[in-house]
């Protein structure tokens, strides 16, 4: 028991490396938030665009979502960081990682929103249009509020899954939480830092998971 504590919870090591770990944690938080803030609205925008049914555009959208749902995130991050400079686009490691993850999230989010749009009964469209609401207004005031409600559970699952992909940023040397803590682990031959890292990941994602659970409940049945 004593050995376990010394091995996984070495407090002197914790305090020594705390500033580095904290910095890594903040970078992870920042990247996760940016990924969600870019990926989900982009996915929604794509789903809405697809709804207007412009043939060539829809082919492009479908290619986009199929491609980015299939390709491994790791490959995408590496490409964004090492290949884009050949096209004159040099990205910071953090930017490259967030861009890659946000694009993947947008592809999944588009599919989720699209399924949600199709799940709303056709009669809702007809009811809205029959009162003189335009296509866009019907979409905005009648369809999308229902779509968002349906989409929240699968969307949060996906957002959490992909946000955890921020750890892949280590391949392009992003000093995010897992990168920092696993470096410390190999430098001092003690996994305490990793333990702290894991606790911090929980600290980041547990409230998020709880919050979305609350959202699901709050949105599921208005006052009933």
């Amino acid at each position, binding site marked *: 028991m004593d050995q376990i504590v010394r091995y996984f919870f070495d407090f002197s090591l914790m305090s020594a490396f705390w500033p580095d770990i904290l910095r890594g944690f903040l970078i992870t938080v920042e990247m996760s938030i940016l990924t969600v803030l870019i990926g989900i609205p982009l996915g929604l925008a794509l789903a809405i665009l697809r709804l207007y049914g412009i043939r060539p555009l829809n082919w492009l959208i479908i290619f986009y979502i199929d491609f980015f749902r299939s390709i491994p995130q790791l490959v995408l991050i590496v490409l964004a960081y090492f290949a884009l400079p050949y096209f004159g686009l040099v990205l910071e490691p953090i930017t490259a990682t967030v861009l890659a993850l946000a694009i993947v999230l947008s592809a999944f989010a588009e599919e989720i929103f699209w399924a949600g749009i199709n799940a709303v*009964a056709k*009669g*809702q469209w*007809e*009811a*809205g*249009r*029959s*009162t*003189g*609401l*335009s296509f866009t*207004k019907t979409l905005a*005031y*009648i369809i999308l*509020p*229902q779509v968002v*409600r349906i989409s929240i559970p699968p969307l949060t699952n996906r957002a959490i899954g992909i946000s955890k992909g921020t750890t892949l940023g280590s391949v392009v040397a992003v000093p995010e939480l897992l990168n920092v803590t696993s470096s410390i682990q190999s430098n001092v031959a003690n996994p305490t830092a990793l333990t702290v890292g894991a606790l911090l990941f929980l600290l980041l994602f547990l409230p998020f998971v709880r919050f979305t659970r609350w959202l699901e409940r709050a949105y599921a*049945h*208005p*006052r*009933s």
Partner: protein
Amino acid sequence: MTSTPATTAVPPETIVSIEGLRKSFGNVEVLRGVDLKVGKGEAVVIVGSSGSGKSTCLRCINRLEEPTAGTIRLGGQEVTGPKVDLDRLRRGIGMVFQGIHLYPHKTALGNVSLALRKVVGLSKEAAEQKARHHLEVVGLAHKADAYPAELSGGQQQRVGIARAMALEPQVMLFDEPTSALDPELVGEVLNVMVRTKEMGMTMIVVTHEMKFARDVADRVVFMDHGAILAEGTPQEILINPQHQRIRDFVMRSHG
């Protein structure tokens, strides 16, 4: 072509006029040339077996279905023209659906006031005041803050009627408004429809409620295989039908 309404010598101002309406779904011709005129304040009830094209005919009037051929006019204005402002036109045509289709995320008040705000452009207060009035007309003022899931089917459909009436349309279309309801809830909806007629609203009703057709209709239209087989007073069509086809239908409808 059409027999004149027996109630009035001079036909009232025409609100809806349908000429040569045809509609095909793929190779299936659902409407095979329908002509119908509906006068101001008139209640026309369309009856016929399922598949006879009643609902499709109704849905062509506000172009939820796109007619394949023919002309439809609303108060002299063309509905079927290529450059019609559909959204503007639909404000003048209220519709009540078999499936009701209330917006589940909005209260009764929200359902009725939405188009008043976003189509007519009223302020929130003005729209809600008007919506409350129309909920009162259908006897649901006390349910203004209830969500559709908290209302019975009959109450939901009455909100559906209020939602359409709130825009003060020139004509109300009822597409089998009671077909999805439990039998004991049908009466309250029919009562609201009777009141709607008494307020002078022009109505076109597709229904299987023969008693409603007999008691309330100014004119009954019998559709068969995508065309109007006969039209006339309820007496002429439902009580003393001339066609064997209609006699069979009436017999079966009485159960």
